[in-house]
């Protein structure tokens, strides 16, 4: 959750004239903004999330209005004090011996103002305090909703997208909404009230001066427009160059060994320098152009300041306005430009927030898994045997490209099914279907004679144990990771499972033993060790049906001997689907499914398939004759 934009603390308006142009700040201005497709609908839906908090929101609104109103009123009162002082002084200068300073009157004004300021600050505090709860609770709910949704989405959704893509919706976009709710929303309210309030106050002082000030407005608009559109162009190129640079760095670092082995350091640095130079060019231009917005804005505002000083001065000299009012007016003018810039800024922020919200809502609107059989109707296998059968199953990831057509298999309890084929042959498809990660397009799959669609997904999946090639362990202790296989497993059972998986020994050599915490990428264990842990996890789960991947590329030779023994032990009395890499496994299997390009092209026993002389036979012979003798088969 990186801060995409700097925190601009919601500055309450008010306070006497803050001198000419506030330099600096607003570093993010002029950056390109993402736009929502359906602004109104998304906005309305986002508002819906705020509804439960509406009483608090109304309180926020009221306190915001009050604090702003008090703050806006104060410069005028302050001006009266100045006027009184000025009157006294003019009297003195004009040699009026009776001229006195109305000190008690000024004191009263001071007291009155002190009260105004106190109340204004108090309300402003209440408003921000309340908003903290409103914003965070809303986002809390939204986050949970997103997470729940992720739990209900079919695997199809996850397989079709990168993790980064999903994470960016669930994290960055939600975070964006949170920041906006926390800061920009109240800022928007106070800014709008300030603008209106200030205009009203200025009009009551002098319509003419107000006119002068309003004339400077189009000027600042032109300035912002011009600079913003130019800087957007540079920001875009900068972003593109940065992307290229990051890509290059990522590639070179992850291929560090290759770069070294092939002595390509110089080329790599040269390419980097090229991109870096271009990044520099677009980078400074983007910074420069966007950095000019503030000075230009403050110039416009200073020009307004000068005219008001001059024209106001003349008006006071002519007696058509009091000096205190001029002072107040100057303060109002100062207060005016800030909220204007802020509102322009917030408009961008809100646009990007709505775009974020839209992406989050898109995720929330994705089609969920087909609903489960209702609790009372659902089939529950109390003592699962593990007979698995497929009847006329049709399946394809896309409707127009069926991978499996009219497939019948019948596996009895305790039998072993070997799935073979070249890598990338789509062997996980079968796993996807058996565990109902994907729905079949036709036909049915039964376990112990019961259609899997009539079972609860949770129950169905609890019948299976899975040891896949990409081990998944979470950031926790080794004990917790093994215990993941069964809720409420005892210490003894965990150790027993680890022992059966030949993992106990290596675990005990770790300094913290079973309490060793796996780090984020679980990089403190080797691939093989991780594999052993997942086997222990499956052993503990004690499923009726196993899905194993003889993952030769991560666990090798010696450890593999252990693993194989453990797997053999595990497979006893269970129906097993093995994504096989070892010929011994394949040959002993009760049924071999040969897959290629995602479809099952042959099935049968080893002997049957060999006599068919098809793809399997080809595969088998090419392995053992070094590809020379039987090249004709291919």
């Amino acid at each position, binding site marked *: 959750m990186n801060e995409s934009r700097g925190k601009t*603390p919601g500055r309450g308006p008010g306070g006497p004239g803050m001198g000419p142009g506030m330099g600096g700040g607003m570093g993010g201005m002029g950056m390109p903004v993402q736009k929502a497709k359906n602004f109104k609908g998304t906005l309305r839906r986002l508002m819906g999330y705020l509804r439960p908090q509406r009483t608090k929101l109304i309180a926020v609104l009221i306190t915001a209005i009050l604090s702003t109103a008090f703050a806006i009123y104060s410069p005028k009162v302050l001006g009266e004090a100045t006027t009184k002082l000025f009157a006294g*002084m003019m009297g003195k200068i004009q040699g009026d011996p009776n001229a006195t300073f109305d000190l008690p009157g000024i004191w009263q004004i001071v007291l009155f103002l002190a009260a105004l300021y106190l109340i204004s600050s108090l309300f402003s505090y209440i408003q921000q305090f309340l908003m903290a709860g409103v914003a965070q609770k809303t986002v809390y709910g939204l986050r949970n909703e997103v997470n729940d949704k992720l*739990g209900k989405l079919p695997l199809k959704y996850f397989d079709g997208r990168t993790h980064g893509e999903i994470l960016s919706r669930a994290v960055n976009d939600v975070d964006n909404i949170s920041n906006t709710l926390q800061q920009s929303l109240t800022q928007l309210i106070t800014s709008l009230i300030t603008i209106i309030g200030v205009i009203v106050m200025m009009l009551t002082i002098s319509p003419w001066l107000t006119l002068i000030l309003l004339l400077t407005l189009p000027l600042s608009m032109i300035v912002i427009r011009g600079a913003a559109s130019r800087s957007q162009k540079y920001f875009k190129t900068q972003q593109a160059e940065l992307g290229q640079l990051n890509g290059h760095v990522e590639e*070179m670092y992850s291929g560090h060994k290759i770069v070294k082995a*092939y002595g390509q350091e110089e080329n790599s640095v040269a390419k980097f320098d090229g991109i*870096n130079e271009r990044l520099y060019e677009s980078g400074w231009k983007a910074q420069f152009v966007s950095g000019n917005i503030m000075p230009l804005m*403050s110039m416009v505002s200073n020009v307004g300041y000068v005219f008001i000083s001059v024209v106001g001065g003349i008006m006071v000299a002519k007696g058509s306005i009091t*000096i205190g009012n001029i002072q107040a007016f100057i303060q109002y003018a100062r207060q005016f430009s800030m909220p204007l810039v802020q509102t322009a800024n917030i408009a961008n922020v809100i646009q990007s927030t709505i775009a974020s919200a839209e992406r989050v809502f898109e995720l929330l609107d994705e089609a969920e898994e087909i609903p489960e059989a209702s609790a009372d109707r659902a089939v529950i296998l109390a003592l699962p045997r593990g007979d698995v059968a497929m009847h006329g199953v049709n399946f394809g990831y896309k409707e127009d490209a069926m991978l499996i057509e009219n497939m019948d298999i019948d596996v009895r309890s305790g039998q072993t099914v070997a799935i073979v084929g070249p890598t990338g042959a789509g062997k996980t498809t079968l796993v996807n279907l058996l565990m109902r990660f994907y729905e079949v397009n036709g036909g049915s799959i039964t376990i112990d004679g019961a259609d899997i669609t009539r079972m609860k997904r949770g129950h169905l999946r609890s019948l299976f144990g899975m040891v896949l090639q990409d081990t998944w362990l979470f950031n926790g202790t080794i004990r917790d990771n093994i215990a993941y296989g069964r809720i409420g497993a005892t210490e003894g059972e965990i150790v027993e499972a680890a022992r059966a998986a030949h993992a106990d020994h290596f675990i005990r050599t770790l300094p913290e033993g079973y309490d060793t915490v796996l780090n984020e990428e679980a990089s403190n264990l080797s691939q093989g060790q991780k594999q052993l842990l997942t086997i222990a996890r499956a052993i503990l789960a004690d499923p009726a049906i196993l899905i194993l991947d003889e993952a030769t590329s991560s666990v090798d030779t010696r450890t593999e001997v252990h693993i194989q023994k453990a797997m053999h032990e595990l497979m006893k009395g269970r129906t097993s689907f093995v994504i096989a890499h070892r010929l011994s496994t394949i040959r002993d299997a009760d049924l071999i499914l040969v897959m290629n390009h995602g479809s099952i092209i042959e099935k049968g026993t080893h002997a049957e398939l060999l006599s068919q002389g098809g793809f399997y036979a080809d595969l088998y012979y090419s392995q053992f004759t070094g590809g020379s003798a039987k090249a004709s088969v291919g």
Partner: protein
Amino acid sequence: MLKLFRYLKPYRWAVAAVMALVLLQSLSELYLPTLMADIVNDGVVKGDTPYIWKIGGFMLAVTAVGTLVSIAASYLSARIAAGFGRDVRSKTFRKVENFSLLEFDKIGTASLITRTTNDITQVQSVLIMMMRMMVMAPMMCIGGLIMAISKDARLSLVFVGAIPVLALTIYLIASKGIPYFKAMQKKIDKLNLVLREGLTGIRVIRSFNRLEHESKRFEEANGDLTQTAIKVNQIMAFMMPMMMLILNFSSLAIIWFGGLRVSGGHMQVGDLMAFLQYAMQIMFSLLMVSMMFVMVPRASASAVRINEVLELQSSGTEQGAKPSAGEKKSAVSRYGEVEFDRVSFRYPGAENPAISDISFRSSPGEVTAIIGGTGSGKSTLISMIPRFYDAEEGTVRIDGVDVRDRSVEELRATVGLVPQKAQLFTGTVSENIRYGKNDASDEEVRYAASIAQASDFIEKLPEGYSSPVAQGGTNLSGGQKQRLSIARALVRRPSIYLFDDSFSALDFKTDAKLRAALRSETTDATVIIVAQRVSSVMDADRIVVLDDGRIAGIGNHKELMATCEVYREIVSSQLSEEEIA
């Protein structure tokens, strides 16, 4: 942070210029209220309209100068910050490119990437803010104080009261808030971790039916984060109202005490008005400084990480041990005999050596296979040949010369490494193959591809050899990537081939064809293969069986079957009876 700013040195004059310009800008901003005071004091009081116009014109001129100056400052600071970012980025990248594998692993790939990209960008953007705000703020503050004191020294005593109160308030709120900010960052990381785990392990979670458990974990992390976030924001809710209150009260104090001084005839009304504006500038500059305190720690964490990279002492493998020209010449040969002589190596900080007491010799035309269990040190062993690691004890020799006496560059040019993970780069297919030999001709590239069994699939690609390879080669299958990475090694026709389990992603058929083609291609070269499948090492001239970093047996298949228990175990796990015979 400051340490990193040593790289600002080339820009020191520009930085000085920015400071001077910002000072000028602050002065011009501060001068406006003074001029306004003149309008009030001399123009308004006396009713002198021409004077008012004159000063007004002057004010416009000051505004124009101020704007020009600040645009110039903005120009320079943009150039400085972008230039600084470019320099540090380039230095870091160069440094990392020269890291040996040991140094590289010390920090880790992911972390190095973040440091070279995000961290530097972060520091760069803070640098800009610093030059715009942090320089401006003290100038404004000091300038404002000088102007205020020059207008009325006694009234300036108000600041003596107000500034400490302001500073104290900022300090109190910040010291309460910052620990929460830190805690919040940790909780955000935790939440992300849970979410990411949920995504990567989705099949496992669903198959173990632990959705609810994961949901609970998420909700806990989420609730925890929300609590802290609310707390932080409630504390920060104090900030602005308190600031405004202090500012407003000090202006009230100025009006009241100033009023007293005006009534006593010690001060003019115009000066009082100007004084009010100075006060605001001083206070706001203090606020800006306080904002910097929030931003700087975040950037300084980045700066520390970058510094770590830049200051990492190189072990010397990469830079050191460049032999003199004469020696280098004598070392060059196209022969390629590899010899390990009682070689031991341990990773820094590791208790046990990764490999110990390894001795064997492999001559050109021979195939040596290395087989062994997880963590038995196979990959470490072959990494010693191109000097990714240097032996702790013993020597690795090529053609009788210690590898440490040869230049890394020249040594690696004789080696063709095919790593376990086929790593391709953005570019075209032929560019990827040419990575092995920059000046390879088209024929050479095609030939290498055909040996590697890659030409079939390459020619089927829409643009053949000019087809693009995406970052990390994601548009190719594992087997295709592996074949390209083999072609890359073949094209340089090295005298030593190192295959680090390079055939794992190939199906049986391609594997066999490739082996047959390789055999004729590598007759003059020394071939060292790390392998998993016994079937693929059975016909090697020499098989080295590693067990826990030690040699458990050396010999050909038959010999090992007779003598080596570990080897027999491996074989029996993979092959059935008749295949062993």
